[in-house]
């Protein structure tokens, strides 16, 4: 057998390429970000100086930042519920079919293949042209709203497009879990006189709780960072009514102000919030899974 040292040496050699790119493009930015968040570094002057916690103090008083955080929290909450409920319903409906299973699955997953930028612009056409047309000519008056210009409807529009793009992915995860539930268990419940509704909630649902954990974790994580959909559909408007935190950070850094140091402080706060929320979620749901 090789000695420990030799083993470690050959290991290091094999890991080196991965370690190098990882350190340069992920680890270093993450670590140095903590330092930059405490400087007045910007995109214009060559030098920057240490300002301590001044940026963080400013973040806490930044009304626009917290407004975008408020929007993001509302978005996260609605997405977690809407996307997961819809995806689970679709997964259960498809799994209960004997025919056309593959066809439905293929169709529902289609939006996930396309970037949200492309999907977002397609929906933009629907919201700004098609719905008006349907309202005026087909008598669908309930569609007659300023879908992009009115803050309330703009939020709904964003949710529709984001859910449209996310449901297929979640559905695939739920379907994989549903296929893992043994038919004998369901049959046993049926023989014991349980109806379909009871069988689902008492037998099937507890068996797929790990999939629910994964799906909620994924939705939380991606929803907190929402950028593409909002950027494409409303650009954060009208005013700043639909500005997400990621968009707020992007604009602080790359549009107008180019205050990189300050924007990094904002992104550090976002990271801490996401970390806290996902930790709580994982602890709660993992604990639940183990009880079963």
């Amino acid at each position: 057998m090789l000695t420990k040292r030799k083993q470690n040496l050959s290991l290091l050699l094999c890991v080196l390429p991965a370690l190098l790119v990882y350190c340069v493009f992920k680890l270093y930015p993450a670590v140095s970000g903590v330092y930059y968040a405490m400087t007045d570094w910007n995109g214009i002057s060559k030098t920057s100086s240490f300002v301590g916690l001044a940026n963080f103090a400013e973040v806490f008083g930044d009304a626009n930042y917290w407004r975008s955080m408020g929007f993001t929290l509302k978005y996260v909450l609605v997405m977690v519920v809407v996307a997961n409920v819809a995806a689970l319903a679709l997964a259960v409906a498809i799994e209960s079919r004997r025919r056309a299973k593959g066809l439905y699955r293929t169709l529902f997953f289609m939006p996930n293949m396309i970037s949200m930028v492309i999907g977002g612009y397609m929906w933009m056409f629907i919201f700004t042209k098609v719905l008006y047309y349907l309202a005026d000519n087909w008598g669908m008056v309930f569609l007659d709203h300023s879908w992009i210009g009115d803050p309330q409807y703009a939020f709904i529009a964003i949710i529709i497009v984001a859910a449209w793009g996310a449901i297929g992915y979640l559905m695939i995860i739920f379907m994989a879990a549903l296929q893992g539930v043994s038919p004998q268990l369901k049959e046993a419940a049926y023989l014991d006189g349980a109806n379909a509704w009871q069988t689902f909630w008492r037998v099937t649902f507890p068996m797929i709780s790990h999939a629910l954990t994964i799906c909620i974790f994924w939705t939380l994580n991606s929803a907190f960072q929402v950028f593409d959909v909002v950027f494409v559909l409303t650009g954060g408007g009208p005013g700043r009514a639909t500005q997400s935190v990621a968009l707020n950070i992007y604009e602080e850094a790359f549009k107008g102000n180019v205050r990189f140091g300050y924007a990094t402080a904002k992104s550090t706060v976002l990271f801490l919030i996401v970390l806290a929320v996902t930790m709580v979620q994982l602890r709660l749901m993992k604990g639940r899974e183990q009880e079963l």
Partner: protein
Amino acid sequence: MKKKRLLADWLVYAALTLAALFTLFPLLMALMNSFKTNGELLTDVMSWPQTFNFDNYVRTLDKMHYLRSLGNTLLLTVTSVTLIVLFSALAGWRLCRTKTRFSSALFSLFVFSMLIPFSSIMIPLYRVVLALKVKNSLIGFSFVYAGLGVSMAIFLYHGFVKGIPLELEEAAAIDGCNMRHTFFSIVMPMLSPITATIVITNALWVWNDFLLPLIVISKSEKYTLLLSTNTLFGQYSSDWTAILSSLILAAIPVIIFYAFFQRRILEGIADGAVKG
């Protein structure tokens, strides 16, 4: 009882079909209206196009520099995915096979950062990109994707290698196989199921990523498909026939890819999500 069942059955099919129509609606509307003239589109968005003329497509092919953007995106995706697979397979395999404290320390170093959201590192990352002068270099840029993607891929490879018996590698070593040979002709083939998963998830990620190219690429000659589409939308915001045809053009490559590898893609997505 039986009648009730049948009715419920039809209701579920009807609901599914309705949901499918909703899913396809924006795609079909974009496709249908992309063949119209601007005047036709303005008078009736719901009508069938009078003639299927490809004028809009010819126009946008040129305007969005379609072939160039497509080539750029393809190059970026292929190099990024190749780097991720090579680096991570090699690292994940050795990390799993080496049972030392150093090895587990390295593994945790890779895994711990998986929770850091991209928006939290994008600004310092931008600085690194500037300092290394890889701004506007597609090959250099693919190393950035490799850096961001290896954690997850190493995690997946590491988990997969655990389930492969060691005997084959030992036999190869006894036969005098060196490590490079063992890796490429014995280990890599055995890893192919998980490699398929990693290739699919990462290819879709890189291909559809928007924020990172938006920050890093500023030269229009290096634009990806999404950047070109976005620019076109900014320039011709009221010329819907131009925009819709460009959207269809931008969507076509992935749709074709999906049509061919549908089963593998869906399997890969489920696999990657559950294991990650």
